[in-house]
C-alpha cells in the first residue's frame, strides 16, 4: 500500500487546519464592554460610520447583524428571551408593524424620540420610530408620458396610459405599502379597480427590481414606472457610474399630490438586556445631527424636512399624505390579498 503514514500525516494536517480555523472563528467574540446588539435590515457602508460616531460619543459599542428584514424578524422570534439583540431596525412600515404585533418590541419612553419623530411616522404605542422617509412615486420619460398625466396615483390606471406603464412585482413590500395607502384613501372597491387598471396598462411583464425598471423608462421601453425615489437618486448622483448617470438624466420624478410616504425605523427589542443604551442609540439616529448621515447615505429623505442632498433638492418639495405608517402596516395583509386577486403578478 502506498499510503499509511503519508495519509495519516495529511489527515492530521487537515485536522489541525480545521481546529485552527475554528479557533479563528471563535476568537471573534468580544465581551466586557458596554455594548448593544443591533439587528438591521439596512446595509450601507455609511451606516457603519454613523454607528462608529455613536460609539465615539457615548462609549457604547455597537455589535451589528445585518440581514433581510423578514429573516431578522424570524430570528428574533426564534431566539425569544435568549436573543442578544437590543435594537431592531427594519425597512418599511408594514414590517415594523408586523414585528410590533409579534411582540418583538417594547414601548419606549423618550421625550427626545417623540420630539424628533412626527406622530404619524412612529407607532402610536411608541414601540417603533421612523428614522428615514422613503417615497414611492411615478417616474416618467417625458418623451412618452407627460408629468401631468401621472400627477396622482389614481391616474396610473387611466386607459390612456395603456402599454406605457411598468411595475415591480407584488412581492415588493414597497408596492404592498403603496396599495395599503390607496386602500386607506380610496377604499377597497376603488383600489381593486385601480390595480386592474394598472395591470391592463403594463408595457412589460412585472420587474423583479427597481433599477432595471428605471433604466427601461430612460430607454423609452416604459413611459412611466413606479419606483422608490432613492433608486433614481443613486443613478442621478452617479453612484452607479457615469453611464447610468447620463442615462438617468432622461428620467423625471413626478410628485403626486399628496405623496405616499414610507419609512425605515427601529425599536428596542422586547428582551433587550441594555434598554437604556438602546434608547440612547435610537435617540442618536433620530437626532438632527445624525439624520443627514442616515438618510443621505442612500438618498432617502430625513424624517423631518428635505435635507441637503443636491439630487433631492433638484426634484423640489412635495406634500406628504396623512396616512400614518402604522396604518400602512395594519392594511398590509388586505393589500396583498387585493393585489393577488386582481392580477398583480
Amino acid at each position, binding site marked *: *500500500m*502506498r*499510503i*499509511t503514514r503519508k*495519509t*495519516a500525516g495529511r489527515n492530521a494536517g*487537515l*485536522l489541525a*487546519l*480545521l481546529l485552527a*480555523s*475554528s479557533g*479563528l*472563528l471563535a476568537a*471573534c*467574540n*468580544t465581551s466586557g464592554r458596554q455594548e448593544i*446588539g443591533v439587528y438591521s435590515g439596512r*446595509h450601507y*457602508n455609511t451606516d457603519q460610520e454613523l454607528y462608529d460616531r455613536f460609539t465615539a460619543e457615548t462609549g457604547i459599542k455597537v*455589535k*451589528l*447583524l*445585518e*440581514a*433581510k428584514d*423578514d*429573516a431578522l*424578524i*424570524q*430570528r428574533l422570534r*426564534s*431566539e*425569544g428571551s*435568549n436573543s*442578544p439583540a437590543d435594537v431592531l431596525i427594519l425597512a418599511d412600515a408594514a414590517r415594523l408593524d*408586523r414585528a410590533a404585533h409579534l411582540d418583538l418590541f417594547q414601548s419606549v419612553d423618550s421625550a427626545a424620540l417623540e420630539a424628533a419623530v412626527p406622530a404619524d411616522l412612529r407607532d402610536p404605542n411608541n414601540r417603533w420610530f421612523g428614522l428615514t422617509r422613503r417615497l414611492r412615486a411615478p417616474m416618467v420619460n417625458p418623451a412618452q408620458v407627460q408629468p401631468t398625466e401621472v400627477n396622482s396615483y389614481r391616474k396610473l390606471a387611466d386607459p390612456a396610459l395603456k402599454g406605457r406603464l411598468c411595475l415591480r*412585482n407584488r*412581492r415588493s413590500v414597497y408596492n404592498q405599502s403603496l396599495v395599503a395607502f390607496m386602500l386607506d384613501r380610496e377604499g377597497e372597491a376603488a383600489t381593486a379597480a385601480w390595480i386592474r387598471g394598472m395591470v391592463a396598462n403594463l408595457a*412589460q*411583464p*412585472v*420587474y*423583479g*427590481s427597481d*433599477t*432595471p425598471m428605471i*433604466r*427601461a423608462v430612460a430607454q423609452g*421601453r416604459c413611459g412611466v414606472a413606479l419606483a422608490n425615489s432613492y*433608486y433614481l437618486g*443613486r443613478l442621478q448622483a452617479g*453612484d*452607479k*457610474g*457615469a*453611464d*447610468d448617470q447620463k*442615462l438617468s438624466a432622461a428620467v423625471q420624478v413626478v410628485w403626486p399630490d399628496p405623496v405616499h410616504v414610507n419609512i425605515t425605523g427601529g425599536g428596542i427589542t422586547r428582551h433587550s438586556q441594555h434598554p437604556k443604551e438602546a434608547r440612547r442609540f435610537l435617540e442618536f439616529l433620530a437626532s438632527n445631527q445624525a439624520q443627514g448621515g442616515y438618510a443621505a447615505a442612500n438618498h432617502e429623505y430625513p424624517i423631518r424636512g428635505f435635507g441637503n442632498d443636491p439630487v433631492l433638492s433638484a426634484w423640489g418639495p412635495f406634500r406628504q399624505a396623512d396616512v400614518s405608517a402604522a396604518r400602512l402596516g395594519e392594511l398590509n395583509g388586505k393589500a396583498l390579498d387585493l393585489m*393577488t386577486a386582481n392580477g398583480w403578478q
Partner: protein
Amino acid sequence: MSMSPLAAGDRPTWQPGRRLLSSGALLLALLALWPIGGLLGEGLQGLLTGSAQLGPDGGAQLRGTTLLLLGTALLGGTLGTANGWLLANCRFPGRRLLRVAQLLPLASPSYLLAATLVDLGSRQGLRIHGLGWGVLVMAVSTYPYVFLLSTESFTICGRRQLEACRCLGVGPWNSFRRIALPLALPAIGAGIALMGMEVVNELGAVQLLGIPSLSAGILQAWQAEGNPAGAVGLALITLCIVMVLLVGERRLRRRSRRWTEGVAGGESPAWPLQGQRALGAQVLGLVPPLLSLGIPLLWTARNLDQLRAGFSGELLQLTGRSLGLGLAAAGLAVAAALVLAIAKRWSSAAWLRSLTFLAGMGYAVPGAVLALALLLLGSPWRLAPLLLLLWGYSDRFLAVAKGGLDAALERLSPSLDEAATGLGCRWPAVLQRIHLPLLRGPLAVGALLVFVDTVKELPLTFALRPFDFDTLSVRVFQYASDERLAAALWPALMILTLGLIAALALIPGLERQGQDQAPSRG
C-alpha cells in the same frame, strides 16, 4: 446502494468494532435528520390543522421549479456529459486548457451571474427575465457537477473495451453511446441529482429573474407571511422532488453495477478530432465557462471606475471568515460522509443503509428553512450561532461530499475487502490501507465542492451568523439585492478567487484519475 457486507462467518469477531462504526453513523445521521424531523413534525401538524396550504402562488411555484429543474437537467446534463466525454476521450487543440476551464463555473455563484446579466442587459435595453434565462444561468452554473462525475467515469472506461469497439469497427460515437454512456450513467445521474438539488434550492437567481419557485415560496410563506406551516408544506413538496431525484439516481446506479464490475482500467484511447469536429468540441468546452465566469468579469471590466471606490480594508476580514467557514465545513462534511459511507459498506442492517441514505436529505431543505429549524432547535440549548452555522453547512452539504464517495465505493469491487478480511484485516485497517488511498480523489473533490458551496452559501449564513460576522457571500447578496452591484464588486471578486483556487486544486486530481484507477483494476 452499497456492496454486500462481508462474509457472515467473520461477523462475531467484528461485532464491537462494527457496532462502534454503526453507532457513529447513527449519531451523525440523527444529527443530520434532527432539524428535518422537526420540520416534518411541524408540517404534519400543519396538515392536520389545515394551515399547510400551497397558497395562491403554489401552483405557479411548483410549475416554475419543475420546469427549471427539467430544463436545467437537460441542458446542464448534456453540457456536462458531452464535455466529460470530449475532454476525457478525445484529443484536440486546447483540450488541457478546456479541461481546467470546466471547473471555473464552480467558482461563480449563480446569483452573481444572474445579477450581472440582469444589470448588463438592462443597460443595453435587453430584458433578462424568465424561465429560459433561468435554465441558462442554472445550467452553466451547475453542469460541472455532471462534468466532474462523468469525466471520471469516462476516464476509467478502459482502453480494452473501447479498443475492442475499435477492432469491431465501432466508431467513436457508437462507442460512446453503446459502451461509455451506459457505464457512466450512475455518475451522470449522481451529477444531475446534485444539479437538481442546487436548482430546487436556488433563491437569489430565481428571484432576480422573476421565476416563481418553491424556494422563494417557502421563504415568502415563512418569513414574510409568518406562516411556518405553509412554508413547511412547500418544503415537503421540495423534499418529495429531491427524493425522486435521489431514488432515481440510486436505481440507475444499481442497474449499471453489473457493467461496472467488469470494467478494466488503463488509459482511455484518444480519439483525435480535426477540422470542424475539433472546432465544435472547442466551442462546446469554451462557451459555458465563458458565460458563467466571463459575464461577471465583463461586468467588472465595464465598472472599473467603481472598483477603486469600493475597496475597503474589511475585505480581508470577510475573506478570512469565508475561508475559515469553508475549510471547517468541508472537513466536517467529508468526515461525516466518510463515516456514513463506510458504515453502509460494512453493515448489513437495512435500517442503517436507509438512514445513511436519508442523512443526505439536508441538501433538499432550502437553506433558509434549515436555518430556522436549527434556530428553533438551538435556542433552548443556547447553542452558539457559529456551532449552529457549521451544523447547518455540514447537514446541507453532506450529500455533496457523500455523492462522489458513494459512487466511488460502488466501483470498488467487494473482492478487495473480502481479500483483506481473509488476510485478517479489520475494517479500520481496510479503511486506512485500501479505501482511503483509493478514495483520495473523491474525498478531495467532495471537500473542494463543499468548500466552494460553503463560500457561496447564502441563506444559512444570513440567518445563523453571529454579530459582526459578515462573510463575502453575505456582502455580495446584500448589495446585489439592494441593487448596488458596484459595492458588491470586491467581495464578489474574492468569492471568485477563492472558488478558482479551490477549482484549480481539483486539476491534479482530474489529471491523475486515470493513473490512480489503474493499479487497483489492471
